[in-house]
């Protein structure tokens, strides 16, 4: 198992490098010019200098290697420096200066070049870190809610196969599967914000939760985005849960368990459920990155300023370093969760051995 994990980890490095190369080359082909917004009165030599300052003068392969260096070495070291200097958890460690370098001219300690956003002229990762909590809260919560709803539905519809509940459940999951989030979002807004006026239609990220009232507002504004995302999750996972349960319910070991006089609840909840969870857990792991990607639309509908919305605004503003970094973060998530799913499959199912 450990062998397998290490092998997969090593294999994921070329995968990620290839993906980063694909994204990089795609962006290189982009016709957009970051200098397009600079006033025409700026002389061309100055423009050329600005271009070089943004790292655009160098040949393509140098730019790519520089980006790799910035993303994989400078940014993590900045993060480590931050952890040892300011964080609550690791602040007691001696301060490190991994991201610092000695300036050749002045001899002072200066920070190394980080990935800079063309739009805001500030480090990309700082903005990503700022936006991360909103996305994780909304997306993470919706995923948890979706799973909590989906699993009981899946279990019960498989147990009462072809019953009214099963038929209704299958229909609802099919509908949830088919309605895109850019329709459920406005639909919920029309119903709950416009007609009934119960919930706010815009997610206010400046809200600080410090009292009961603000907590209530926070819950109210989270209900709709979470529900939109949870509907998709529920539809997908309950289908998998149902079919996994159906596969297991006709197995011989279930008959044995019933024959030896176990209670029905024990048969279903212990024997069948534990075996059925194996494929479902991997599906849950595999769906995590997809939900980050799908959240782009939901975040846009409810004006949640999370990562998805950041990607969209960066794309429209031609902010290529930001787009590159964000897309690559999505890719890392996908590769990571694929790995987790594979490992979980091996851990949960003793019949599967990767050696």
């Amino acid at each position, binding site marked *: 198992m450990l062998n397998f994990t290490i092998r997969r980890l090593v294999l994921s490095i070329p995968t990620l490098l290839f*993906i980063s190369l694909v994204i990089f080359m795609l*962006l290189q082909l982009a016709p957009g010019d970051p200098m397009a917004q600079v006033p025409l009165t700026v002389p061309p030599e100055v423009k050329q200098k600005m271009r070089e300052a943004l790292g655009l003068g160098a040949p393509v392969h140098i730019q790519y290697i520089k980006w790799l260096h910035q993303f994989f070495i400078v940014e993590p070291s900045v993060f480590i420096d931050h952890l040892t200097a300011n964080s609550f958890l690791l602040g007691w460690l001696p301060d490190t200066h991994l991201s610092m370098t000695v300036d050749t001219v002045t001899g002072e300690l200066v920070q190394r070049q980080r990935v800079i956003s063309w739009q805001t002229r500030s480090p990309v990762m700082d903005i990503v870190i700022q936006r991360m909590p909103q996305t994780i809260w909304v997306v993470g919560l919706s995923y948890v809610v979706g799973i909590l709803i989906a699993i009981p539905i899946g279990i019960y519809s498989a147990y009462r196969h072809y019953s009214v509940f099963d038929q209704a459940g299958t*229909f609802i999951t099919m509908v949830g599967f088919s309605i*895109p989030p*850019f329709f459920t979002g406005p*639909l919920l807004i029309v119903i709950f914000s*416009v007609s009934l006026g119960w919930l706010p239609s815009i997610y206010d990220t400046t809200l600080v939760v410090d009292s009961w009232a603000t907590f209530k507002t926070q819950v109210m504004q989270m209900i709709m985005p979470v529900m939109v995302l949870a509907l998709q999750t529920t539809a997908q996972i309950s289908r998998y849960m149902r079919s996994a349960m159906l596969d297991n319910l006709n197995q011989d070991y279930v008959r044995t368990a019933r024959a030896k006089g176990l209670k029905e609840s024990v048969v279903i909840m212990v024997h069948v459920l534990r075996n059925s969870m194996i494929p479902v857990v991997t599906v849950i792991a595999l769906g995590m990155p997809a939900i980050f990607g799908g959240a782009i639309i939901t975040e846009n509908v409810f004006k949640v300023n999370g990562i998805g919305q950041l990607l969209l605004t960066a794309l429209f503003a031609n902010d290529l370093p930001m787009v590159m970094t964000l897309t690559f973060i999505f890719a890392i998530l996908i590769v990571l969760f694929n790995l987790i799913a594979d490992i979980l499959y091996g851990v949960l199912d003793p019949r599967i051995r990767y050696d």
Partner: protein
Amino acid sequence: MTDQSAEIEVFGALKDKEPSKPPRSQWRDVWDQFRKHKGAMFGAGFLLFITLGVIFGPYLWDLEPTKLDIRNKNWRPIYTLIWDSGAIAGWAHPFGTDQLGRDIFAQMIYGGRVSMAVGWSAMILSLLIGTTVGVASGYFKRADFLLMRLTDLVLSLPILPLVLLAVTLFRQPLTSFFGSPEKGMFVLIVSVIALTSWMQTARIVRGDILALKEREFILAARSIGSTSGKIIRRHLLPNVFSPIMVSATLGLATAIITESALSFLGVGFPSDFPTWGKLLSDAVDRMQEYPERVMLPGILISMTVLSVNYLGDGLRDALDPRIRGR
């Protein structure tokens, strides 16, 4: 005489009985099973209705979708009259008009044309790529490793961000290449969707080809000297037809949703060119006064995708001989 009849009795169990019913073709069985699935029948019917509607609709409802009629702007749909007799509505514009007086019904028909065209062509292109890759990697051992690594790599690309990226970045060059923004956008969206959705088909086809390749009829075909191309065309492809059809329905649903999502995010077709996603996203700003403009295209997208999904479900049941007949 008695001897003979006794003999018949004795051998009766060994003799072939008359077939109780005339032989049935495979597709007859498939159709019978398919007919039992109510959702699938509904899905097929609705899909047919929408497809015919968007093809022949413009001949029956000949209002220009882009014609501005500012005097008759903001009409409500005809059904508003049921509860609100003072509403501006009428049979001239059964679904109402938008803020510039364009007829929403005509826009929906034209939008459906675009959405369905994108969906069908992206699906067919993605099937072509997926089947080619799947057959090649399943049949030719040498190509297998490389093609499957490629498939894995593409599977771990973040699809929606990349699609957004490609569509925003290549809008200008393709528009100038094809001469008109609509054509450029159409080619771009179709190819981007196809290039990012062929992987599942490739995997399924490869798995089936790997299993079929070891069967005796392939050995027989090879032993009489059939070439690889002929074996693939005559013997392998017809046998992987059913999984391809099932993934085709999934592909159609994804393509329609992706196209609408792109239009919704504002990176799809140009603004005066109606598609379902575009109608929906344009209406979101005026959702409070005119909720029906969000609902109508939204319901159409959802219904189409739902019917395609149900069609796929029914096809999967009907084409699987283990489920058939139960």
